[in-house]
């Protein structure tokens, strides 16, 4: 067996520079434009201002700064609501214009990968209905869930290569009174966090240079139609996707490596709902315990619905078996917001998480008891009918 120390003794300056002309896949940008010229669809252009970054094969990808239409995640909004709230909070704090639509459905891909109770035309029609809805508002879609992000790229590939599917979806959309609109880029919110990382760091009020973290890159971000994923020479020499690591490094966090970084989290789509023994075992044995043993982090940061859910919620049952667990899990949006001074309960909503994050908050010098009392005060006021909700203005510190 190769000792895991061998992994960390590699030369640190080994950088791979991809040559786009040698890419093993076609450049989807060219095909989107060609199909637009042929009248097959309209391309929704990334609005200015945008920031250009490089994808896996060295091609340029545009990431919009604002005028973003937030394609929310059912798992984030439903079960980890501080995840999405933090994305919106960051936009507000940075003074950026965005749209939180109610004319949006889930991508339905979680169900599709879990149960297969759908088909290619239905999945493509759901995606293109949402894209058309975004276009109608004038805002550019930004995708919160990595599975939606991955699935929409699959749909794009299918539509590019199948005139029959394009025709079928165009007919469906016509009956809905919509046009076939393809975004110039499929953009994941964590790519936006990545390109905004220096501005986020400029607003940082909670120092994090004494914090160690491990990261988990989401499978449906960098494996499923992986060519769209963003890479950078300063992050593992262009050999792993750059996002999350880049953001944490901008915040001063020490990002530590571990040997099973490529492994999935164990979510499994159907498994997390109806066969969780698998998800729990995989998350704990292949991810959490390995990270704890090899890297001893204070926090685990990831960038997807299923990954936060599985890696966080799987740790409770493992405690009964004396497993080496107890690693708090957050999204990159949550830790970025926390660094900028967001409230741990009113914004990050950490009470929806399973693993205890109080020791981490204490290490950051945050008085979590005071913060929890402030949140409970608000909830008591809602219960007493003294207020209906919490406004953005109240949490815009």
């Amino acid at each position: 067996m190769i000792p895991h120390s061998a992994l960390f003794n590699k030369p640190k300056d080994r950088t791979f520079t991809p040559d786009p002309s040698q890419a093993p896949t076609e450049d989807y940008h060219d095909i989107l434009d060609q199909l637009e010229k042929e009248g097959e669809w309209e391309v929704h252009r990334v609005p200015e201002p945008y920031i250009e970054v490089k994808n896996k094969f060295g091609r340029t990808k545009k990431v919009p700064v604002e005028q973003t239409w937030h394609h929310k995640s059912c798992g984030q909004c439903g079960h980890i609501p501080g995840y999405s709230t933090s994305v919106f909070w960051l936009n507000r704090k940075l003074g950026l214009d965005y749209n939180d639509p109610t004319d949006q459905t889930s991508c339905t891909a979680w169900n599709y990968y879990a149960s297969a109770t759908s088909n290619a035309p239905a999945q493509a029609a759901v995606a293109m209905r949402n894209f058309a809805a975004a276009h109608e508002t004038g805002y550019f879609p930004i995708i919160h869930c990595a599975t939606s992000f991955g699935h929409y790229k699959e749909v794009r590939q299918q539509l590019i290569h199948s005139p029959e599917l394009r025709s079928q979806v165009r007919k469906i959309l016509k009956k809905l009174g919509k046009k076939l609109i393809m975004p110039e880029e499929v953009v994941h919110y964590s790519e936006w966090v990545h390109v905004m990382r220096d501005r986020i760091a400029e607003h940082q009020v909670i120092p994090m240079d004494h914090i160690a973290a491990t990261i988990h890159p989401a499978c449906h971000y960098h494996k499923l139609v992986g060519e769209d994923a963003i890479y950078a020479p300063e992050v593992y020499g262009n050999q792993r996707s750059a996002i999350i690591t880049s953001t944490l490094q901008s915040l001063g966090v020490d990002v530590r490596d571990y040997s099973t970084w490529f492994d999935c989290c164990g979510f499994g789509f159907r498994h997390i709902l109806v066969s969780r023994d698998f998800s729990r075992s995989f998350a704990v044995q292949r991810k959490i315990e390995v990270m704890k043993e090899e890297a001893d982090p204070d926090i685990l940061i990831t960038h997807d619905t299923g990954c936060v859910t599985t890696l966080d919620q799987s740790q409770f049952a493992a405690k009964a078996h004396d497993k080496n667990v107890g690693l708090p899990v957050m999204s990159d949006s949550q830790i970025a917001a926390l660094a900028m001074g967001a409230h741990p309960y009113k914004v990050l909503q950490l009470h929806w998480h399973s693993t205890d994050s109080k020791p981490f908050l204490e290490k950051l010098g945050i008085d979590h008891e005071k913060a929890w009392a402030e949140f409970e005060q608000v909830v008591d006021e809602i219960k007493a009918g003294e207020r209906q909700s919490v406004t953005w203005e109240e949490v815009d510190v």
Partner: protein
Amino acid sequence: MSLDLSGRQYAHVDYDEKERLFDEVKGDLRYDEYLYGCYECGICVAACPSARFYDFSPRKIAQTMAREDVDLFYTLLNDSVWDCSQCFSCDVCPRKNSPGGLITLMREVAVKNGLASAQEALEGYGRVVYKIMATGTQVSPDMLQANAFPDWGPHVKDIAKNLEYWRKALPPESMNTTETSWQVDDKTIIELYLIWHMTGVMDMIKEVDEGLFMILQDVMEEKLEDAGYDVSFD
């Protein structure tokens, strides 16, 4: 449990029926992009989370389809495909295969044809299918109940107890909801129902769960009728 690859358990099924299902998978428009042959290198197995915990192999899937081994295909269709995690780690394949993609197609065919193994795999999953098809968001805050997620910890009980108030305490107004993850417009739901109708998805539901189909049918037809659409899912 180990996977019986002898095929004896399905010897009673006509070869023609197995071949019909095989051809259905092969006929999908995505098939040619998911399979280019197989080096039998096993890289997909090394990357596969399910292979570590089940007697499951993405390599067997790719090999079986490439060799057009119809009998083995039928065994895997029934006894293996539901173990896949659909993470697409197997897309690391040097031959550019997507065993996970092949499994998506196989599962779809299993559902569409109402195989008993598919019905069994989806037992207990009906509520999730109902949520996504009827409400437009797949998982919802009110699914977090202690009896459904006892292994997630005591906070689930706290969430369920305080759900209404904790949801109102979320700054994004769109998320002050309990039955859906965010507020979805009625017009949007109608458009989603029309997509299900035009793409035959309800026919698939009928094959695997007739009770769920009838519930969804009632909900959708009533709402579509109220919106001025004369649509039947029969």
